[in-house]
């Protein structure tokens, strides 16, 4: 459905699978992996490198 939207491909750091991310992400931005749902930080753009973002317990827990 988003076929007409610009995307980049990158490697999911957890599963190693190829995933698509929006073309307008910036370095340092957090996005979630479409495969694992994990929050990933954009480390670099050329090439695209993603890393697992540190978990923010506080924003969720009780």
């Amino acid at each position, binding site marked *: *459905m*988003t076929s*007409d*939207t610009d995307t980049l491909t990158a490697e999911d750091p957890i599963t190693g699978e190829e995933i698509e*991310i*929006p073309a*307008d*992400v910036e370095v340092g*931005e957090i*996005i*979630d992996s*479409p495969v694992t*749902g994990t929050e990933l930080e954009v480390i670099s753009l050329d090439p695209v490198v993603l890393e697992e973002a540190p978990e923010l317990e506080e924003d969720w827990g009780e």
Partner: protein
Amino acid sequence: MTDDAYTASVVGGTGFTGGELLRILAGHPDFEVVQATSRSADNMTVGRSHPNLRGLDLRFSDPDDLESVDVLFAATPHGVSMERIDEFFEAADTVVDLSADFRLPEADAYDEWYDGHESPEYLERAEYALPELNRENLPGADLIAGGGCNATATILGLKPLVDAGALGPDVGEVVVDVKVGSSEGGAGGGAASSHPERSGVVRPYAPTGHRHEAEIEAYLGLSVSFTVHAVDMVRGASATCHAFPDEPVSKGDLWGAYRDAYADEPFMRIVSGGGGVYRYPEPKSVAGTNHGEVGFELDPGNRRVVVFSAIDNMTKGSAGQAVHAANVALGLPETAGLEFDGLHPVGSP
């Protein structure tokens, strides 16, 4: 979805009604969702906000970068659409707005009930979404204003009596006592809608002066005595209307009036007495669906007619009504995308 599907965007996609629109449109054979916006979750997957939509391959994007679509659905708080309506029409041929911004026919009413209107020139162009009330004016409409959920429940309950002449501007008091679920408050609730405080309540949250009164008056021609209570459910709005027709009416008259009004309506059901557990309208019976249930009872002693009306505020009361209206406006089958019939048993949906 068909090849020649209409493209659609949802502005306010992280919200409750925005998520419901996405759910319905994603399963609609004649729509293709190409954009869902969010400022707070820009670039995140839609499934992160709405776990039922994890299968949808879509990420939120910025509401300032609107894509060109056939139909733009706006599910934003009051005030956003009246400010951005020109931009919305630049991006889309048809705008369906779920907020109150274009619901009332007169700019005056916005002065009285809200804080005035920024784009009053659009008010005449806007059509009220509820097909049971306004079906004839929807085909071809390009600005559709979704009804308020409590107003929708009330209008669906009372309209048959108004049409039958049993109720009208001069007919005594009509008390409307509404009970609603917590999703009506939207995704950004405060302390009063935290789970510990909101659980188990019967809480008068709009004792008097609820803005939906304005819609009811505008579209039914009735001034009602309106009070809204929060109760412990998430989805659902239930209106109990106590009316005192001048002329005595019989049970048969009532059945006649409601059958006349709704027998051919694809989403309306008359549930009024009978056996088993579900004898009158209940939000549970329609949760997740675009159905509306209405029922009634006569109080012989005091000539009172009690009318019960139940909808899901997220579907019939907002997103479903919006899609239903869009279906009518675009000439699509009325029930397209809205076939889900609900669950039984179901707890507090």
